[in-house]
């Protein structure tokens, strides 16, 4: 049943996001800490376990795959709701403070990837 897949997704989402909220509270920050990350780990582990038990039917998996394929349209909708006006009209300080970290991060990526590969 397709709803089993959607429900499995919703289960991982709920548990992960709640864990992220509680962790945020525990650390005293007003933000969710890693909610989706935890949810993803649950989903990977749970679906692997269910597949091994033969409980993950094609229909169940389709319930998850549907949302997987809805991902890009949702990102397009998200792009259309960003505060682009603010970003474009906010002057040099905001432009520089938003632009420079990205450039530095992009430059650091090859170094860090190489470092991580070396030590594996």
């Amino acid at each position, binding site marked *: 049943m397709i709803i089993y897949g959607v429900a499995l997704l919703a289960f991982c989402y709920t548990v992960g996001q709640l864990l992220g909220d509680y962790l945020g509270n525990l650390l005293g920050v007003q933000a969710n800490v890693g909610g989706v990350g935890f949810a993803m780990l649950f989903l990977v582990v749970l679906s692997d376990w269910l597949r091994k038990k033969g409980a993950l039917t094609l229909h169940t998996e389709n319930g998850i795959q549907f949302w*997987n394929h809805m991902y890009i349209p949702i990102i*397009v909708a998200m792009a259309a709701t960003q505060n682009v006006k603010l970003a474009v009209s906010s002057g040099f300080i905001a432009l520089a403070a938003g632009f420079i970290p990205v450039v530095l991060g992009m430059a*650091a990526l090859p170094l860090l990837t190489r470092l991580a590969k070396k030590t594996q």
Partner: protein
Amino acid sequence: METLTAFVLKNGLIVAFLVVGVLMFVASIFSTHLTRKKIPGSALAILIGLILAYLGGHYTGGTKGIADIPFFAGFGLLGGSMFRDFAVLATAMGASLLVMRSTGWAGVLSLFLGIFLSFFSGVAVGLFFGYTDAVSLTTLGAGACTYIVGPVTGGAIGASSDVIALSIAAGVVKTLVVTVGTPFLAPHIGLRSPHAAMIFGGLMGTTSGVTAGLAATDPVLVPYGALTATFYTGLGCLLCPSILYLFLQLFF
């Protein structure tokens, strides 16, 4: 006209499905015929989305892009954090636990490095433009992390509202630069493997930017980038108003 308006208000999400579908169809035609598929349809669709967001903000003066126009109000729900996180989660289906585990520590390292790099470049920009107090500099540095870390930090340490607004703007700029820049820069910085995507997520941190940028680059990479990026904002909210603020107080 009144009936139409009432219908759209009541059925916003469904209308958003329709509009996004049409938008992606148009983008894929552009991609095939104007760029010979050199720029992927999804990247073009995201770009068109950003342009629409600008127009929405321009005409309504609101903060939610096209969603501030009543006809497109459903975009707020479809493009909001609930659906985004739910779909990002679904992309993890089929992601490799092995890769996640073996890149784990590098992901953690990239998170800290990403926050420090962003924070201190935000502080440097603030200094360059004449801010000299620790509170404003910390808030600007936090804004350079993400547009959530900025206002949360600024609120916690008592920054003025114009500095907080500036920090939000910096975070939004960062999200947009990552969204648009990633597909173009990916081949040059070795952003091809799940392994590199996890480190990328930690370095950039903006979940919206990372997931949109990777979607336009190679959708296979999305879950890996999202996995680390999702810890960034929380970690930033933890570090910026505490040790990073205290550190700046030593100098200013």
